[in-house]
């Protein structure tokens, strides 16, 4: 398999969990760059060109609330989960756990066979 094809599949796999990761991180307020740093520190390096529009989309959908705050001589827009976002996060977390358990079992069985 070519490196390019592998990268494409990797991106597809990550794309599905980005929303969950962002919602999970925004249980506490973050501005764009600090959110990216937090995800990066957790081992999830998301391209800025993907992250910032995704956050805007989630806010437009009413899943995040936002406010401008002044700090360190500059204004920043802080985001955090809305009540609707909280409910969605709980629902998606359950789904993620279930999927993770299933896939782990499948991979475990596959490993035993090989």
């Amino acid at each position: 398999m070519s490196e390019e094809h592998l990268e494409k599949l990797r991106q597809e796999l990550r794309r599905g969990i980005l929303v969950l990761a962002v919602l999970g991180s925004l249980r506490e307020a973050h501005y764009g760059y600090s959110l990216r740093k937090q995800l990066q520190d957790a081992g999830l390096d998301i391209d800025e060109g993907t992250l910032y529009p995704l956050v805007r989309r989630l806010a437009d959908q009413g899943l995040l609330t936002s406010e401008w705050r002044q700090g360190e001589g500059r204004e920043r827009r802080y985001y955090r989960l809305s009540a609707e976002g909280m409910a969605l996060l709980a629902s998606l977390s359950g789904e993620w756990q279930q999927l993770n358990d299933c896939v782990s079992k499948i991979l475990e069985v596959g490993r035993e066979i090989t």
Partner: protein
Amino acid sequence: MKLLDRYMSAVEFHLPEKRRNEITRELRANILDKLESLAEQQGRAITEDDVSTVLKELGHPQRVANSFSPPQQLVTADLFPLYKQVLAYGAIFMFVLEMIRFCVVFISSGHIALATLFSGFMLKALLMFASVTGVFYILSNPPGGKPFFKPYQCWSPEQLPPVTHGWQRISLCEQTTEFSSSLFFFLLLHYPLLMPDEVMANLTIGFAAATKQWVPWLAAAVGFSLLFNIWNLRFSFWSRFKLAISAGLNLMIAILLLCMSRLPAIIVELSAADERVPSIDIANSFISAGLLWVGLWLVFEGGRDLYRMWLLSRTF
């Protein structure tokens, strides 16, 4: 920070006016945060080269601006198979329209306008392509976001055609060829209805008296064939019943053509003796040979239809 200002101005240009200020204000804050962090890491003030590197990493202004807009598609993946099908049928329809025009010109003037047929078809096909694409763009991006209709919802397994052999599917190419040729001959056989009276009066060539006796039978058979081809456009698969009709039509037309090929003259000159058409004998030889070969081909097609009927009767 001149570069940052230029970059933000470029991004702003590609953003929808309503969201321009909000997005650029936030994006600028995020870039400044990144530059600040970079300065901390390197322990020195940021240069324009650093700004340039950071902006390049972020991406082209138009791409960045587009990423903030909801994704738009000319035709969605869901609608694309239907879009292709409509385009294919649209192309057939345009070809048939142009073929009718070509036939009328040929019959009324005797002029074979192949270049006009090609250019007329291309123009109509392009117009059809643009119109169909426009309609599918609206269907793919409906105002308000609520889809007008969802394809592939109204169906049931019982409605699927009973096809077990690959050859039972009638290809688009086959449908088009059959329909166009039937239409051409149908119009050719009805030329007196299509020609203006003054053109009819000045014709130099016409069917011979013996040929005229066969023309109504042939016109009726070709008319049935045309209707049958329209039916095949709607239900594009062979069943035993349709094969029986096809075999009957093919054999009937074959018999008529083979009989006509035996006539001493198919066409005769209508003009006065001093305006004799020199190539009339050669034309008759060509037409007779043509009728013979087309007749034999139709015998083969009729036989193939009967063989396929037998194959299907063994399947069920």
